[in-house]
C-alpha cells in the first residue's frame, strides 16, 4: 500500500517537474511547481514525517508559491519565446546530465544502507522536531534566523530609493 502510494506520488512529482519545463506560460510553470511541492509533501507524509509535510504545504505551496504567482500576475508576463536550442546543450548537456544522474544513483546506492527506512523510524512528530531544533541544533537554528533577517534587511535597502535620487527627480 505504501509502495503503491509512493510510486503514484513520485510519478506525479516527476510529471509536474517535466511539465514545469515544457510549459510556455509562466503561470502554468508556477502551477506545476505547486504540484511538485504538493506531491513531495505527500511523500514526506508517507515516510511518517507529518510535520515536515504540513510545513512543506504551508510554507512552500501556500506562501512562497503564492508570491511567485503574485509576481507573475503583476508583471503580466506573456508567453516565453522558444529558441531552437543551442548545440552546446545538445552535445554536452544531455550526456552530462545522464552521467550526473548515473553517478548520483551509484553514490546513493553504494553509500547508504540498502534497507529502506521504515515509516516512522525517522523523527516525525512536531515534539521531536521542536526538541531537535531548540535543543540539539539551537545555534545553527538561531544563526539561520539571523541570516534570514539579513536577507530581509538587504531587500529593504535595495527596494528603498536613496534620498538624493528622489530629490534630483523632483528637480528634473
Amino acid at each position: 500500500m505504501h509502495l503503491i502510494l509512493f510510486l503514484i506520488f513520485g510519478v506525479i512529482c516527476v510529471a509536474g517537474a517535466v511539465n514545469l519545463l515544457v510549459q510556455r506560460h509562466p503561470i502554468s510553470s508556477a502551477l506545476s511547481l505547486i504540484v511538485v511541492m504538493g506531491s513531495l509533501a505527500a511523500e514526506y507524509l508517507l515516510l511518517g514525517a507529518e510535520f515536515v509535510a504540513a510545513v512543506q504545504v504551508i510554507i512552500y505551496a501556500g506562501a512562497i508559491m503564492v508570491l511567485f504567482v503574485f509576481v507573475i500576475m503583476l508583471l503580466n508576463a506573456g508567453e516565453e519565446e522558444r529558441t531552437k536550442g543551442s548545440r552546446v546543450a545538445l552535445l554536452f548537456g544531455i550526456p552530462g546530465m545522464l552521467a550526473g544522474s548515473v553517478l548520483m544513483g551509484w553514490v546513493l546506492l553504494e553509500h547508504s544502507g540498502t534497507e529502506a527506512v521504515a515509516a516512522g523510524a525517522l523523527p516525525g512528530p512536531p515534539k521531536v522536531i521542536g526538541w531537535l531544533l531548540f535543543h540539539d541544533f539551537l545555534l545553527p537554528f538561531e544563526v539561520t534566523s539571523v541570516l534570514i533577517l539579513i536577507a530581509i534587511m538587504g531587500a529593504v535597502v535595495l527596494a528603498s530609493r536613496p534620498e538624493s535620487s528622489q530629490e534630483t527627480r523632483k528637480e528634473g
Partner: protein
Amino acid sequence: MSIETFIIVSVIKTVIALIVLLTAVAYSVWLERKVVGHIQNRWGPTRVGPFGLLQPLADGVKFLFKEDLTPPHVYKPLYIAAPMIAVTFALTSISVIPIGNWVTVGGIHTPLEITDVNIGLLIILGITSLGVYGVALAGWSSNSKYSLLGALRASAQMVSYEVALGLSLIGVLIMAGSFSLREIVDAQGGTFWGFIPRWNIFRGQIVAFFIYLMAAYAETNRIPFDLPEAETELVAGYHTEYSAMKFAMFFMAEYANMITVACLASLLFLGGWHGPIGGPAWLRAILPVFWFLLRVFGFLFVYIWVRGTLPRFRYDQLMAFGWKFLLPLAIANLVVTALIVALKS
C-alpha cells in the same frame, strides 16, 4: 478495525459530512440574508416556503439553469479550474475538524470526524493557505482589470493576515502542547472554582481570540475586509466574469470557509464540545455535538452581525492594521503566554 470496514466507515462519514456541510453552506446564506434584512429593517427572503426556508433550493436551481457564459479572451484552462480549486480546498478542510467525542455505532468505535490526525490544525492551515490560488487564478485568468485588481488585493490580504492568524493560534498550542484538535479541546475540560469553564479565552487567550477573529474575517474576505470584492470600485472583484454554477462555486467556497473558521474558533478558544451534559444515554451522546454546533452558529451569527454593522476599510488602512497592529499584538501575546507557561512548569 480491518481495512474494509475502515474504508466503508470513512466513505460513509465523508458523504455525511459533505451533505451536512453543503446544507449548512446553503442555510448560512439564507441566515445571512434574513439577519441582514432584519438589521436593515427589511424582511429578507419570505416568498419561497415558510420564512423563505426553501430559498437556498430556489437559488441552487437558478444557478444550475442559468446560462454559463465564458467571456472571450479568458485563459480557459485556469478560468475553469479556478472555481473548482476554491471550492475543493474550502470543502476539504472540514475533514479533520472533530465535532464531538468518540462514538460507538453498531459495534464500531469511531471519532465524530472524518479522520483523527495528530497535526489536524496544521493540515487546516495548509489547506486554507492553498485556497488563495482559487481566488488569484480566477482574477488572473479572467483577463479583466477588475478581476485582476480583486485577485491581487485578495492574495496580498490573505497572505498578510495569515501571519497574524497563525501567531494568534500558537498561544493556544503552547497551552495544550499539541497540534491535535481533539487534544486541544480535551485540555479545555473542567471549570475554575466550579462555575467558570476552562475554555482558552478564560485562560488568558482572550487577546488571541480577538486577533484570530479579526484575521479570520480578513482571511475569508468578509466585511469589513471585503476589499477584494468591493462592489463600489471593482464591480465584484475576482469573480466579476463568472456566472451560473462557476460563480456559485466561489460563493460556496466563501461560506464553507466561514464555517471552517467558526468551527476552529469554537474548538480552539471556546471549549469545543464541552458543556453541561446529563439525562439519558442518547441525550448524553448528542449533547456535545449540540453544544459544538451552537457555538459554530453563534460565531456565524456574529459574522453576519458584523457584516450588517460595519463599513468597509480603505486598502491602506487594511494593510497598516494587519502589519502594524495585529502582528505586533499577536507576537506580544505569544511572548507573554510562553513566559507564563514556562514560569508555571
